[in-house]
């Protein structure tokens, strides 16, 4: 799975599954930037073939609804959707 890295403070292993066309995903990224969170992300709509299958399989494991955005923290906690309060609480 190819992930892009965004620099910031280390607040654990943070992975964001997003779509390049999704406005809630854009808001989520802006909030993570605002909170100075270092994170990895992938735009799933820009993947194809085997990589797409791999990413979808990984995301389904964390969020069977396969919805976006999905944030996975330290391979344990999952936040689905742009839940501003929960995201702020988690990283503040």
């Amino acid at each position, binding site marked *: 799975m190819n992930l892009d890295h965004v620099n910031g403070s280390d607040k654990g292993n943070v992975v964001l599954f997003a*779509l390049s*066309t999704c*406005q809630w995903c854009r808001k989520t990224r802006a909030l993570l930037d605002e909170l100075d969170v270092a994170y990895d992300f992938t735009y799933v709509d820009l993947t194809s073939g085997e990589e797409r299958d791999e990413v979808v399989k990984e995301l389904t494991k964390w969020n069977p*609804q396969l*919805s976006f955005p999905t944030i996975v923290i330290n391979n344990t906690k999952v936040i689905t*959707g742009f839940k501003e309060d929960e995201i702020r609480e988690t990283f503040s």
Partner: protein
Amino acid sequence: MGNFDFYEDFKKDAEKNGYFLNEDIEFVKALLESIKVNIDRYGYANCPCRLASGDKKKDLDMICPCNYRDMDLSDYGACFCALYVSEDVLNGKIKLNSIPDRRMEELAKNKKEVPINSNELGKLKVPIWNCKVCGYLCGKEKPPLKCPICKADSDRFEQIL
């Protein structure tokens, strides 16, 4: 179907049909741009907030306006993208929040659905077609090319009886 090219036209169309757009104009404009990206990419207006397979037949249910818009407007006051919102959201009676995506659940439900045996309802002279976008029903050999109510294409119709 909606004209995604111009915000003003899109808004007018929506309101003519009894729908309301999110009052955050920049947010709506960005969504319309994303829908246009999807039209260029896939050849159809896939929901910008959901993952397209690239196979139109598999994605028909999430072509904007998606099959889930009306249900989400009733239950949450907004469609999944928050492109469309309810009057209560517009008037500030309900706060706009991130909502769950019901698509997977609805697809699973549809798989289980047992078709109604038309014998139970007497013999129908013509099949009944349901527009899955707006719920318009008509009795015809074939569905109309475009839904006369919401202008959805004929492939959004399902024969229910």
